[in-house]
């Protein structure tokens, strides 16, 4: 069983590292987490984002659960915001998350296979 003492050790280790956490000038990942999103599988998708981003120490990327934008049939929907740029991905699954992080968030190139234009124009 994980104890609070373990958590204290984690805190101390984290405090050792100089925090380079950007405020809100980084990238934002928004995951649709309304009834439609959840039913379509948004929870494992969001979890994958959270874990991978933490694992790869992408400190200026934040992941947030959001509501529904009214396109329930093509959930799970994920939006990546960077400055004024908005990319909307739909029918995202765990494998897609891997690609979005590697190719888009880290590589700077949107993953065309999942962008919303493939389904709605």
């Amino acid at each position, binding site marked *: 069983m994980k104890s*609070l003492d373990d958590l204290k050790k984690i805190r101390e280790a*984290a405090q050792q590292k100089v925090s380079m956490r950007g405020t809100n000038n980084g990238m934002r990942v928004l995951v649709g987490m309304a009834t439609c999103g*959840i039913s379509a599988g948004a929870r494992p998708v969001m979890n994958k984002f*959270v874990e991978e981003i933490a694992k790869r120490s992408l400190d200026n990327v*934040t992941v947030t659960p959001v509501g529904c934008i009214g396109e329930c049939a093509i959930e799970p929907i994920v939006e990546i915001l960077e400055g004024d740029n908005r990319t909307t991905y739909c029918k995202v699954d765990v494998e897609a998350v891997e690609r979005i992080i590697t190719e888009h968030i880290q590589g700077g190139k949107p993953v065309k296979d999942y962008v919303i234009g493939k389904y709605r124009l």
Partner: protein
Amino acid sequence: MNELSLHILDIVQNSIKANSTLVKIIINEDHQNDLYTISIIDNGYGMDSKTLSEVADPFFTTRTTRKVGMGVSLFKMACEMADGFFSIESEVNVGTKVCSTFKNSHIDRAPLGDIEDTISILILNDKNIDIYYEHVVNGKKFVFDTVEIKQVLDGIPFTNYDVIMWIKSNIKDGIDTIQEEE
């Protein structure tokens, strides 16, 4: 939604939208009386009696992007399918309490599923809302409380990888422990 923890994730989104600062999720398994109860209690802005009477109607929603609102009605259905009963109480500016009781042994009582995934998403909400999770199995209790966790973390964010992993295994192990002792 085939897990109760997915319904919980969905219902708590309403609490978050209602500007709550604390959401309590309490699960009580009472095997002797064959009951499984989930209570979700928030201190958000609540609802008046007119809204409250409409909320379980799938064609009622406060949102403007679509015309249906299935969250509460699906949860109610899940519970009534398992011989249970559903109640929702609310007071304006005080908060809302959603309570659903299932017949524990009923074949249609969905499993709880990955509650640790639900909670780790809920704590990443934008508004820094505190989550209190209590799980009781025949009187044995496990508690996960972000107020306590935040004190220990002292400013280290929930998005730290080791923190996420600690939270998930803390919840999972905690629930396994109270269930094992049966």
